[in-house]
């Protein structure tokens, strides 16, 4: 008999229906993966199980945990189940911990609130649990505060809080989405170990099919609040009876059709770039310390070429992007585009600037919400100074770029909130194209998008490059995407290029240990299925 049975769970918040008769089963010592794109209701499914729902929620159906019908319990009775029998981990490690309490107190609280031990013993259990999740006493005493830890470490504290009482079921809601690949791999390994050692059930909620393929025993595919397909991972992924599962699967592994660009003419040349930031001084009399963000980085991009830049957070890839675009002044080194020097903010000619544009990560934050699409897209025309087109010519150029990215000229009169995330990234590309640049820097430009939308945008980028010969500097932490769309790749670590070369070469025969570690840590759908099920 299974550990958790969810039957016909329906949920609406206010007038909005969220879940529609969701049924799931999770067993002891097993991992159930729930996959879905944004808006599928996967997180709210998790919150429904423990009834941690927002106000004005209406829940129907039943959740049965070990013969107890949770949906029948009062909030007070559920408090005894939460944290004791069922633990939960959340997505955002940066905000999930109370900033004014020590990590020891927060882990011990799980024990104390259920009255399982006195204060002293609870602290001892907190110590053991933190050790268990890899936060040893030496470096992570109980008296540490959350702000003194990194994102990965905080997520481990979150896990420690959830498993302190060795619950029989653990619910993890996108536990690694906010983490770097190497951290993600470690946290996933930790979760796998916990399941094996404690015989605990795990519900793993994720948008990433590869994570499910690596981890889960059974899977449920969620779309718009409904389970479209569920069953053992092997069956679901092999048979893919539902068209939506098939679509997700192919979008995840999507490689846009593109021709490798071989041009001898160098477009962008970066030589020995150094960028340091002064650290805040601990005391006025202390000597000024510096953080080195870029430590002698050199790279080049040829005309029409697509170059990847891979690195984890803090590797300096965003600093490099800002320096290349002339938004920051480097302390040493040279940047030139088409032979023209790129210096700092006030020091780079407009004629040089118009050769480069950028597409940002956040489709929601990269547009002024108070301007029309016309005004947003036309903004870079400021770089043309007195030669900027006006009137009908200006409008014609806006129409052209909007059409180029698959939107309608009429969209120019709308405001940005009228568009979806994928459409907004199209508008961002249109904005970059309007000054006919030779280089577009894409800074995690598809990272915030769902897989199906991501596939469309990657196709669009490939098509544009083919048509107008623009070069891309593709910055991403996502190795698959970089592998799929770039000709050459640079691997950045701690402000240094540790490896570079043709993309296929680097991915198939990585020379540097760090590159190998990165590639090994990134979950891969096909590889995972092959290793686990031998096909």
């Amino acid at each position, binding site marked *: 008999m299974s550990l958790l049975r969810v039957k016909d769970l329906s949920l609406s918040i206010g007038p909005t229906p969220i879940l529609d008769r969701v049924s799931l089963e999770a067993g002891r010592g097993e991992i159930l993966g729930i996959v879905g794109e944004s808006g599928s209701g996967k997180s709210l499914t998790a919150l429904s199980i423990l009834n941690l729902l927002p106000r004005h929620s209406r829940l129907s159906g039943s959740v049965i945990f070990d013969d107890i019908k949770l949906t029948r319990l009062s909030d007070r009775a559920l408090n005894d189940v939460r944290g004791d029998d069922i633990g939960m981990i959340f997505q955002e490690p940066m905000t999930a911990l109370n900033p004014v309490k020590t990590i020891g107190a927060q882990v011990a609280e799980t024990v104390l609130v259920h009255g399982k031990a006195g204060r002293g013993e609870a602290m001892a259990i907190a110590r053991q649990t933190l050790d268990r999740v890899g936060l040893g006493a030496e470096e992570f005493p109980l008296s540490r505060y959350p702000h003194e830890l990194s994102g990965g470490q905080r997520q481990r504290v979150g896990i420690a809080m959830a498993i302190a009482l060795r619950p029989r079921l653990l619910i993890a809601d996108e536990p690694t989405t906010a983490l770097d690949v190497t951290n993600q791999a470690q946290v996933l390994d930790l979760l796998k170990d916990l399941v094996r050692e404690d015989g605990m059930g795990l519900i793993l909620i994720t948008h990433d099919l590869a994570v499910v393929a690596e981890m889960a025993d059974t899977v449920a595919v969620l779309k718009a609040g409904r389970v479209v397909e569920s069953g053992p991972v092997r069956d679901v992924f092999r048979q893919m009876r539902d068209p939506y599962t098939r679509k997700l699967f192919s979008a995840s592994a999507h490689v846009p059709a593109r021709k490798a660009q071989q041009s001898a003419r160098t477009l962008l040349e970066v030589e020995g770039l150094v960028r340091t930031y002064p650290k805040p001084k601990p005391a006025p009399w202390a000597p000024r*310390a510096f953080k080195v963000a870029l430590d002698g980085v050199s790279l080049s991009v040829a005309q029409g070429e697509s170059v990847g830049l891979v690195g984890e957070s803090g590797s300096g890839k965003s600093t490099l992007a800002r320096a290349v675009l002339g938004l920051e002044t480097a302390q040493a080194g040279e940047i030139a585009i088409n032979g023209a020097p790129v210096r700092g903010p006030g020091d780079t000619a407009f004629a040089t600037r118009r050769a480069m544009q950028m597409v940002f990560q956040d489709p929601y934050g990269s547009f002024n919400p108070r301007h029309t699409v016309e005004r947003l897209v036309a903004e870079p025309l400021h770089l043309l100074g007195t030669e900027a087109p006006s009137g009908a010519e200006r409008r014609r150029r806006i129409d052209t770029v909007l059409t180029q990215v698959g939107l309608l000229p009429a969209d120019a009169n709308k405001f940005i909130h009228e568009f979806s995330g994928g459409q907004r990234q199209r508008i961002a590309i249109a904005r970059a194209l309007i000054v006919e640049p030779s280089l577009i820097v894409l800074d995690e430009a598809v990272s915030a998008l769902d897989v199906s939308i991501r596939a469309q945008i990657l196709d669009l980028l490939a098509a544009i490059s083919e048509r107008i010969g623009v070069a891309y500097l593709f910055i991403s932490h996502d190795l698959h995407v970089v592998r799929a769309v770039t000709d050459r790749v640079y691997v950045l670590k701690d402000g240094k290029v540790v490896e570079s070369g043709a993309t296929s070469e680097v991915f198939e025969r990585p020379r540097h240990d760090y590159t190998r570690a990165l590639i090994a840590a990134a979950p891969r759908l096909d590889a995972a299925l092959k290793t686990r099920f031998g096909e």
Partner: protein
Amino acid sequence: MTLFVLKRLGSLLASLLAASLVIFLVLEVLPGDPAAFMLGLNAAPDTVAALRDQLGLNAPLWARYGGWLAGMTVGDFGISYTYRVPVADLIGARLGVSLPLAIYALTLSTLIAIPMGALAAASRNSPLDTGIMGVTQLGIAVPNFWFAMLLVLAFSVGLRWFSAGGFPGWDDPYAAMKALTLPAVALALPQASILARMMRSALIDTLDEDYIRTARAKGLSRGQALRHHALRNALIPVLTIMGLQFSFLLAGAIIIENVFFLPGLGRLVFQAINARDLIVVRSVVMLLVFAVVAVNFIVDVTYALVDPRLRRPVT
């Protein structure tokens, strides 16, 4: 932590120095010749000269400023021109009324506001919440000196529980506290309304934080999550507001002294303005500014006690 306090202390001194310079320039430079200004139009030239001499006006500007600062550090604020006694003595006596009044009012308003705000937030959108919000909405619209007049009308003129004004001195602490009670209530209630609303909104914001959900997932009840996690975090913004509100409280205390005929700093400074006694004005103003800056310093330090991110910054 020590370093944090030292840094704040440094900026406290800098603020005081800048403020003193402003006060000095306004009162010593703007009127032209302060001695002539204080004595009025038809003063005899030799009287003016004598006052100039007494005020040390013949010294260069920077030396006078330095002398004033140096004097204040040892408690010498100069001699009042109208009272002919050291200003320090004048202020000392008045401070015995104004300072206890301000502290009394601050204590009252905090004791009323924090639980009220917390209660409203905990029972968000209930009739209790709506009631508290309605009362506080009215409370912040009431001028405290008018509210004081109503209190006099009700409790002194009507019920005769309190005398209508005056201050018996601290020889009889009970009588003194009684004389300060109506003024303190009049000051505190409008202030408490503002603070309670701040407390409520800070607590509601905090209750929406991710770590409250984490706490609930650990098995804490709504009330436990509020007490153990939300309250302390909500106090951080509320503390800031309390510091800023103190200047309103101080100004209010000075105004309200007029309603109750209390011999405090307010009475002293208004009389000094009428008598053009710039020395008294200068000293009282400096003292008020000092109080505001000092309270904000205390708030900053308390802030660091509550928030480890300030106490133990990561470098």
